[in-house]
């Protein structure tokens, strides 16, 4: 699988972009010229050899904040999607395989939650519980449960009629064995593609929340929050908001390119 990925140009570009930002996130303490919260002598400075991207409205180094802000994106987005999968996978597997009333009940719930605009759920939850890193992660993973459940269910519906599943059933295997050993491995490919795209959505959501002022509370550097705070100076110092906007878009583009690549390979098989 991984060696096949090397043949897909879009996947390789995607992987390169993602690895770049993962490196920036991990190495942030080493490569950042300053601390992300340290205040320097002048606010709203233009780019200079000391401050490559200038300083923000609180005289903090924008480049250092950009580097440190990578951590929020690189760590929180996959974490919240994984949390969502942990809850959605059993729901989807059971709903698709067992069927019947349980399936109807789960899918009704999923349909109802899917018709609720996601951003409004986030706003409501974050207002009620107060903005914190934990609340942001939980609300984004909650938002991802209904769509993941639905996708896994439809994949299971497709696989459950296959001969190897019938064979396992005839052998008298337990339902748990069939679900985990026969069905799960055979639906994992499309789940990986979906997860890659969904991490991109989570990054957009974390960014949007930061932009709306409901994200990770300051002074933690966060790209969405940087755009929110720097918005007032967009006409005088556009780089303060352009840098995080370009960074965030590039990560999502990287993830989507990777997903396209994986999908291409899956189709060739």
């Amino acid at each position, binding site marked *: 699988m991984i060696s096949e990925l090397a043949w897909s140009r879009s996947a390789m570009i995607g992987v390169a972009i993602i690895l770049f930002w993962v490196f920036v996130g991990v190495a942030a303490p080493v490569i950042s010229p300053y601390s992300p919260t340290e205040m320097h002598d002048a606010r709203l400075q233009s780019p200079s050899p000391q401050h490559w991207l200038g300083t923000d409205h609180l005289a903090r180094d924008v480049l250092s904040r950009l580097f440190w802000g990578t951590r929020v994106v690189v760590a929180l987005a996959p974490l919240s999607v994984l949390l969502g999968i942990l809850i959605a996978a059993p729901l989807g597997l059971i709903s698709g395989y067992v069927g019947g009333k349980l399936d109807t009940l789960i899918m009704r719930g999923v349909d*109802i939650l899917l018709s609720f*605009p996601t951003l409004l759920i986030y706003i409501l939850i974050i207002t009620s519980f107060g903005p914190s890193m934990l609340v942001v992660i939980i609300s984004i993973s909650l938002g991802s449960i209904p769509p993941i459940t639905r996708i896994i269910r439809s994949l299971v519906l497709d696989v459950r009629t296959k001969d190897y599943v019938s064979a396992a059933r005839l052998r008298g295997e337990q339902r748990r064995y069939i679900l985990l050993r026969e069905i799960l491995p055979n639906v994992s490919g499309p789940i990986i593609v979906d997860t890659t795209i969904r991490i991109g959505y989570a990054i957009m959501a974390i960014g949007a929340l930061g932009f709306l002022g409901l994200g990770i509370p300051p002074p933690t550097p966060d790209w969405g929050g940087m755009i929110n705070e720097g918005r007032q100076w*967009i006409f005088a110092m556009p780089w303060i908001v352009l840098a995080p906007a370009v960074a965030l878009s590039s990560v999502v*583009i990287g993830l989507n390119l990777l997903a396209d690549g994986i999908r291409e390979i899956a189709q060739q098989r």
Partner: protein
Amino acid sequence: MLGFLLNRIGTMLLTMLVISMLVFFIAEVVPIDPARNALGRYASQQAVDDLREKMGLDRPAPVRYFNWISNVLRGDFGDSIHFQRPVRDLVAVRLERSLTLAGLGFAFMIPLGLALGCIAGINEGKPPDRIISLISSLFVSVPAFASGIFLIVIFSLWLGWFPGVSIPDPDASFLESAKKLILPILVLALDEIGYLARMTRVSMAEVMKSDYIRTAVLKGIPKRKVIWRHALRNAFIAPFTAIMLHVNWLIGGVVVVEVLFNYPGLGRLLLDAALRNDITLLMGGTLVLTFVAVATQVVADIGLYFMNPRIRFG
């Protein structure tokens, strides 16, 4: 057919019921006492308790939910804590503005997205398809707040063509108002165009490979005519539903665009309510906006039912 309509409307009512419960019980957690809020910090505890009793706040949550929802059904969403005015009036004005913005966004994005998707789908694998597919992947990947920043920097800062804020001014001329709305509409459209073009491309490519199109081509009908007469009609069904079911994404875009351009619509109102802990306003506005979303999805479903004979007779 009547059964289908009743089923859809029944589902919609059930959905709204569950969503209203969710909204109410999530809002329960907010650590704000409306009675204390109304009377101010210096009121005596006795006065606050009396008001709580009068407002019914001392009753159990299910009873309060029932009171709230029966008032809502009569059109009474309560008063906004911050504005001290009926939520209903505040929301009505803002909703109209948001619908205008979303409607203009739709009017711009649907023809463009469909056209791009069709061109790509007809030329599957050829250079036009590759270029359009690349552009739509880019648009899909860039979130609305980032593309908004890019457009403001390019069109207001560098080129100076359009203003970067869109506060409506009743005295401004039509041209002036239109100029203010172009960037927000563009951002909103870019947020969806990539998705719409991708959907249309897949659908169009599939239709072009179908037997009836091949038959039409083999019968000697010119390709142009085949596309206009047969392919488009069938290829548009899938993207039509896709875009209507994507209305929740569009709502997210509307909130972001309104905040970015300072456009006073319902999205901005909801965010301000959230930031000020104005929970009655947030609950009422969320319920109204969700109702709009759910109703759109039901209308899309019913529309699809009439557009696609395979469902109607299947």
